[in-house]
């Protein structure tokens, strides 16, 4: 278990919580410490409680836990909101001079540090830097070398000029010195540093970076939490590689823009969240029957309807697997960590082009907003391979023309994979349509051709099932009687839960499944286990349903749908509860 420190800053939206948290996370990362962050936020621009939380250790951290060691509280509510996580000895940094904070009562056993954040910030050059003063205090409390903060401040403010950087640096020191002089507690925290270099990024950024690496050159989208970061990441970056980002008028347009670009031969994607997926569903069938390679990313949030837009949920799986009228061949790939957001995006583009179908890349709010540290070589660009499938050029096109010399974009090849001629290719002109069509892409209602085309599209999927590696990620004890299955962001907390469980002598085999459709056949693994538990963030157990359907056997379920991701210790407790009664019975 990592020797970790849990830190948070909380206040009202508009208080600069996010950027302050990011600066501290960056400082920790610069100091060679691992970081895993989470956010509590509301869907509003100003007002409402919001917090940025960091768990940090010299070892890898993959989850948040139910423990908070240092809290910068800009409002009284911040303390109330975190009461369950605060513990004896927790340090609460606040500004008692702030009118709303004058009557704050520090809970019994905790250490309250009343620091005139605003006044000290003014001394350094402006009240706006009060959060940075608090960061200086946090450095003192956690025995963290403040120089690391300087480099994070430099990165954050260098565009605003050296004077701003220097003022911030001074503000941090004023905070640190104040804490050193005014308080004499033994906090007991020590933030060890290392020489390791880490990069710090979130899941949406990893998806965006993966898209560029994979050769995606066209992105169309409509802003929506929590997928907007993908679009913002690509904006200004994809252009440097000859691509473009189009902000569409709605998601109906976004998916059709991306479809047009894909027909023109570009690697193209759109990203959205549940409400956008609802609109895009209209076009799923067209993408599939026109056999257009496309990546459609769904960064899930809590539904249904507007639901809880800034909260975690994995409620769209059924929609992605089954959504749309008629029978639609598609793939669903779900990264299970921030780093995998990068790699699965690359893979999604390859799958889309090799099999000429829509690939849904399903991520979730937890992955999207979590900033996590990685050694840079985690994203080794030399490892990126591009496979474009059966694109035919002018030299090859003759062999794909019919007797009348017409190109056959839906030629019923034995493996189901037809040739693609990109517009501009001589003699390749062809149409395609959402109507059932023949090999030439022209409308037909001929029974034989209908059957041939349906079977061809389904054969393509079978070919993919056979040719590709649909492997899962495995952790824990491979011989354990208890098997836990999960998808998406639950991998992180579950990996850490394994450590908690091992401490209690409970061995668990954990399989994290990144492919939802097609997905690995888990019959043998489930047969070998005494108990199979499926962990997911939804109420109905959508992934558990798929697993039961696959293996024709009931599984245990752990579902969380509070809007908050699993925490490692909480998840360990849930598993312990399911497993222990059986052990007693034996």
């Amino acid at each position, binding site marked *: 278990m990592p020797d970790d420190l849990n830190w948070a800053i909380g206040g009202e939206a508009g208080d600069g919580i996010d950027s302050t948290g990011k600066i501290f996370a960056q400082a920790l990362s610069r100091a060679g410490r691992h970081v895993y962050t989470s956010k509590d936020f509301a869907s509003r621009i100003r007002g409402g409680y919001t917090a940025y939380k960091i768990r940090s250790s010299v070892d890898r951290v993959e989850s948040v836990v139910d423990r908070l060691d240092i809290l910068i509280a800009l409002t009284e509510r911040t303390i109330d909101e975190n009461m369950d996580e605060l513990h004896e000895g927790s340090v609460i940094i606040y500004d008692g001079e702030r009118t709303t904070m004058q009557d704050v009562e520090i809970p019994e056993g905790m250490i309250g540090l009343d620091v005139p954040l605003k006044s000290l910030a003014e001394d350094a050059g402006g009240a706006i830097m009060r959060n940075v003063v608090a960061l200086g205090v946090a450095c003192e409390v956690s025995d963290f070398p403040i120089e690391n903060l300087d480099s994070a401040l430099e990165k954050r403010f260098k565009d605003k000029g050296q004077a701003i950087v220097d003022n911030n640096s001074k503000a941090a020191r004023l905070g640190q010195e104040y804490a050193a002089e005014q308080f004499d507690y033994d906090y007991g925290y020590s933030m060890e540093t290392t020489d390791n270099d880490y990069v710090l990024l979130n899941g949406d950024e990893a998806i965006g970076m993966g898209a560029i690496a994979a050769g995606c050159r066209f992105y169309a989208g409509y802003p929506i939490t929590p997928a907007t970061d993908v679009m913002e990441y690509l904006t200004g970056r994809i252009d440097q*590689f000859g691509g473009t980002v189009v902000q569409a008028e709605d998601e109906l347009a976004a998916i*059709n823009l991306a*479809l047009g670009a894909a027909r023109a031969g570009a690697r193209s994607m759109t990203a959205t969240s549940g409400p956008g997926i609802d609109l895009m569903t209209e*076009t799923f069938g067209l993408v599939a029957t026109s056999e257009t390679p496309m990546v459609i990313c769904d960064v899930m949030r809590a539904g249904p309807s507007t639901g809880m837009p800034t909260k975690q949920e994995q409620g769209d799986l059924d929609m992605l697997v089954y959504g749309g009228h008629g029978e639609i061949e598609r793939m669903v790939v779900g990264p299970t960590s921030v780093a995998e957001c990068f790699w699965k995006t690359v893979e999604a583009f390859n799958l889309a082009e090799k099999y000429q179908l829509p690939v849904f890349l399903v991520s979730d709010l937890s992955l999207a907003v979590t900033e996590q540290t990685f050694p840079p070589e985690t994203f080794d660009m030399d490892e990126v391979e591009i496979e474009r499938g059966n694109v035919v050029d002018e030299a090859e096109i003759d062999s794909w023309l019919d007797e009348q010399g017409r190109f056959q974009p839906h030629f019923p090849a034995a493996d189901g994979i037809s040739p693609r001629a990109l517009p501009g290719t001589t003699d390749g002109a062809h149409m395609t349509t959402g109507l059932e069509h023949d090999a030439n892409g022209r409308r037909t209602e001929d029974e034989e051709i209908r059957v041939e085309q349906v079977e061809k599209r389904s054969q393509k999927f079978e070919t993919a099932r056979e040719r590709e590696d649909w492997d899962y990620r495995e952790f824990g004890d491979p011989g354990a009687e208890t098997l836990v299955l999960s998808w998406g962001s639950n991998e992180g907390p579950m990996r850490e839960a394994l450590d908690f469980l091992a401490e209690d002598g409970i061995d668990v085999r954990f399989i994290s499944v990144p492919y939802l459709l097609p997905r690995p056949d888990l019959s043998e693994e489930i047969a070998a286990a005494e108990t199979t538990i499926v962990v997911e963030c939804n109420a109905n157990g959508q992934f558990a349903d798929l697993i039961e359907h696959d293996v024709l056997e009931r599984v245990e379920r752990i579902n969380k749908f509070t809007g908050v991701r699993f925490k490692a210790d909480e998840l360990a407790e849930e598993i312990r509860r399911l497993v222990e009664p059986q052990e007693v019975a034996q």
Partner: protein
Amino acid sequence: MSSDIRFTDFKSDKQPTWCPGCGDFGTMNGMMKALAETGNDPDNTFVVAGIGCSGKIGTYMHSYALHGVHGRALPVGIGVKLANPDLEVMVAGGDGDGYSIGAGHFIHAVRRNVDMSYVVMDNRIYGLTKGQASPTSREDFETSTSPEGTHMSPVNPLALALASGASFVAQTFSSDSQRHTEVVKEAIEHDGFGLVNVYSPCVTFNDVDTYDYFRDAIVDVSETDHDSNDKDAARDLITDGSTEYVGVLYRDEASVPYEEREGIEGSMADIPDGAPEDAMDLVREFY
């Protein structure tokens, strides 16, 4: 681009299933002629069609083409053009596709002003579903779904376009093949989004907006002293309401297409076999 392209090269071997006498025959012939006469060939042309009688056009023409879902032809066309500006993109649709289910996209496609043409076969009726009111149907037009008239004022597509910042607004009559072809050519050659609303009569379900009606009602602005660079004059004609004007009503000579303003150059289809050369810089940004 070959110079010996004839308009019949844009014809597919499928025979249209439109009703005999349908305005769409003339509309399509003019599109094919205009494409050929502006130096395009089927291999560098992308036609996007919507749903409805007009949507069948992709099937009867020969080029790269997509027949998409109802109302979304414009976003598809924009996607094609931005991903490969070297292609000639023409979007075709009907009044229902463009001004009802796709009305939202129409406004934004006009605003975006991508260099492409949009030919709308406007027959003021839903033909393929056998005669219901369309967004351009007259207020007192009686149909199976509006037995006492629509009780709504019709959409004025040209006014809508002008209000959305259009850079090229034109109208034609499918029956006047030569003028229709000329105007579509101008739309193609215009640097930006070229709207051509075509009076394309439905001989089966619309007994009001007929060939005879249009023949009597239309006035070709090229035969008047109308200055198509004059936006105010164009607005007056378009909102006049008493006359059916054809020809180029408005043209912004200074129009710069969106893709040019965005600095998009060349096809996005060509990518390296691996990650781009400088991709590791993207990782380093996260230090």
